[in-house]
C-alpha cells in the first residue's frame, strides 16, 4: 500500500508543482502574489474542453488552452497590475486587483458554462491502466508526471540559457537596473505573465484530463495548495516549487493513509506554518529565481 500511496502523492504533487510554478515565477519577477492564477488554471481547462468538443485533436486543443491561458495572463497584467505599477502602489493593491480579476474570470466561466461540472468525451481521455507490482496508475497520470517535470526543466533552461531568461532574471532583481541596460521592462513583464499563465493553464488542463472534470470552481482546489507549495519550496525558486509540490502531494497521501483523512488539509497547513516559522525562505529559497 505504501508504494501505491507514494505514487499517488507524486502524481498529484506534480500537478501542484506545475500550478505553483506560475505563482512562483510571477512572485519572483514582480513580487506579486497573483491570486488570479487559479482562475487561469480553470479557463485553460475550459478552453481545451471547448476545442475538444469542437473536434480539435487533443494535443492541439491542449496547445490552444495553453495559448489562451498565456493571453489571459497578459490581459490580467494589463488591467490589474500595469496601472498599479505605473503609480507605484504598495503590495496590497495588486493582491486585491488580482482577486478582482479572478472573480471576473470565474464569473465569466460561470456565465458561459454554468455551474455544472463538464467532462471530456470518454473516448478522448480513456487511457490504459498499468499495474506494476503493487502499484496501479493510468497513462494520463504518467503523462502528467513526465510533462510536469519536462516543463519545469524547460523553464529552468529558459531562465539560465536564453537571452529572455537573462532579462527576466535581471528584471526580477532590479527593474531599474534592467531598464538602464536597455531591457524593455513592459515586454519582459508581459512575457513573464504569458509563460507563467500558460504553465498554469497547462496545469489546469492536465488536472482536468486526469480527473476528467472541468468546472468554474476547480481552481479553488489548488489555490491554497499552490501557496503551500511555494512557501515550502521557497518563493521564487523553480526547483523549490517542484520539491514543494511533490512534498505536499506526498504529505497529503501519507496523512490520509497513516493518520486521518479528516485532518489531511490541517496537516498540510501545519507543515506550511511550521516551515514559515522555522525557515521562511523555504527549502530552496533565498537562492530564488535570480540564481534559479
Amino acid at each position, binding site marked *: 500500500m505504501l508504494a501505491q500511496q507514494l505514487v499517488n502523492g507524486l502524481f498529484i504533487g506534480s500537478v501542484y508543482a506545475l500550478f505553483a510554478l506560475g505563482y512562483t515565477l510571477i*512572485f519572483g519577477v514582480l513580487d506579486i*502574489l497573483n491570486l488570479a492564477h487559479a482562475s487561469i488554471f480553470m479557463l485553460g481547462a475550459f478552453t481545451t474542453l471547448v476545442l475538444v468538443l469542437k473536434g480539435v485533436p487533443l494535443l492541439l486543443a491542449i496547445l490552444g488552452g495553453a495559448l489562451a491561458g498565456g493571453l489571459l495572463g497578459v490581459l490580467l497584467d494589463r*488591467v*490589474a497590475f500595469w*496601472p*498599479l505599477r505605473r*503609480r507605484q*502602489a504598495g*503590495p*496590497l*493593491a495588486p*493582491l*486585491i*486587483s488580482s*482577486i*478582482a*480579476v*479572478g*472573480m*471576473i474570470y*470565474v*464569473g*465569466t466561466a*460561470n*456565465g458561459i458554462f*454554468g*455551474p455544472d461540472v463538464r467532462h471530456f468525451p470518454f473516448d478522448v481521455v480513456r487511457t490504459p491502466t498499468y499495474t506494476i507490482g503493487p502499484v496501479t496508475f493510468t497513462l494520463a497520470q504518467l503523462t502528467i508526471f513526465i510533462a510536469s517535470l519536462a516543463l519545469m526543466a524547460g523553464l529552468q533552461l529558459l531562465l539560465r540559457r536564453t537571452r529572455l531568461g537573462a532579462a527576466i532574471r535581471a528584471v526580477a532583481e532590479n527593474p531599474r537596473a534592467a531598464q538602464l541596460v536597455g531591457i524593455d521592462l513592459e515586454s519582459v513583464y508581459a512575457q513573464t505573465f504569458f509563460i507563467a499563465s500558460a504553465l498554469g493553464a497547462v496545469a489546469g488542463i492536465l488536472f482536468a484530463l486526469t480527473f476528467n472534470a472541468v468546472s468554474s470552481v476547480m481552481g479553488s482546489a489548488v*489555490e*491554497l495548495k499552490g*501557496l*503551500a507549495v511555494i*512557501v515550502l519550496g521557497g*518563493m521564487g525558486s523553480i526547483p523549490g516549487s517542484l520539491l514543494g509540490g511533490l512534498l505536499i502531494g506526498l504529505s497529503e497521501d501519507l496523512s490520509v493513509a497513516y493518520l*486521518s483523512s*479528516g*485532518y489531511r*488539509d*490541517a496537516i498540510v*497547513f*501545519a507543515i*506550511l*506554518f511550521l516551515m*514559515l*516559522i522555522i525557515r*521562511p525562505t523555504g527549502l530552496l529559497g533565498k537562492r530564488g529565481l535570480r540564481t534559479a
Partner: protein
Amino acid sequence: MHALTAFYSAHSALINQIGVNALLALSIWVTLACGQLSLGNMGFMAITAYASVLLVLRAHWPFFPAVLAGTGLAAIAGLLLGWPVLRLRGVFLAIATIGFGEIVRIFAVNLSVTGGAEGIAGIPQLASTPIIYSSLALAVFLLWRLTRSRAGRAFAAIAQDEVAAAGLGIDPAAYKLAAFAIGAAIAGYAGALSAFSSFFISPTDYSFGRVVDMLASAVVGGIGSVGGPVLGSILLTLLPETLRFLQNYRDVINGLILLFVIVFLPQGLWSLVDRRRAS
C-alpha cells in the same frame, strides 16, 4: 417613519450583516495599521463564535459574559498566533495566518463539540441591531482615538519602517502582538455577533473566502483611516444583493467594480469623503 420601519423589517438581516462586516474589516485594518497583513481572522471569528454559542447553549451563560469570554479567548489565540509569526512579513505572514485560519476550520469540522459539518442550529437571536451598531460605533471611536495616541504613532512607525521605529525605542514585537490581539478580539467579537444574529453556524462560515471579503472591504474603503473599512463594508455587502439579477454573471460585475476602485481610487472610497486624502 412607517416607510423606515418597513424598510428595517425587510432588511434588518442585511443591516446587521453590514455592521458585522464593518467590524470584520476593522479587525483586518488594525493589523494593517501596524504593517501586518494578517489573514487568519476567520479563525478568530470561529473561535469566539463557537465558544460563546456553546457557553450560552450548553453552559447557560448569559449573552454578554459568554461573548466577552469568547472574545478574550480569541485575543489569547491572537497572541499565541502572533508570537511565532512575528518575524514574518508581507505575503509570508499572510500565508502563515491563512494556514492558521484553515486549521481552525478543519478542527471545527472534525470535533464533535462543534457539531462538525452539521454545525450548531437554534442559536438565539441575541445580537440585535442596536447592539451591533453600538459596538461598531464604539470600535470606530476607540480605533480613531488609538491612531492619534502614542501607541497609534508607534503602529504607524512600525508599518512604515520597522527598523527605524525600533531605533527610536519602539518595541516592534510588543506593538505587533498588541495589534494582533486587538485584531483577533474584534474579529472574534464580530464572529459572535454574527452567530447570535443568524440562528446557525457551521465551519463553512469560516472559510478562506470570508477573510478575502474582509480584506477587500478594508482596501476598497481605504486603509488610510478608520472610516475606510466601514465604507468598504457597506459597498461590498450591498453589491451582491443589488447585482442579483445578473445571476451567473454577477461575479463579473462584482470583480469589475472592485478592480475599478483599486485602479482609480488608490486611497479607497474614503478619499471621496475625505478630500484631503484624494490625491
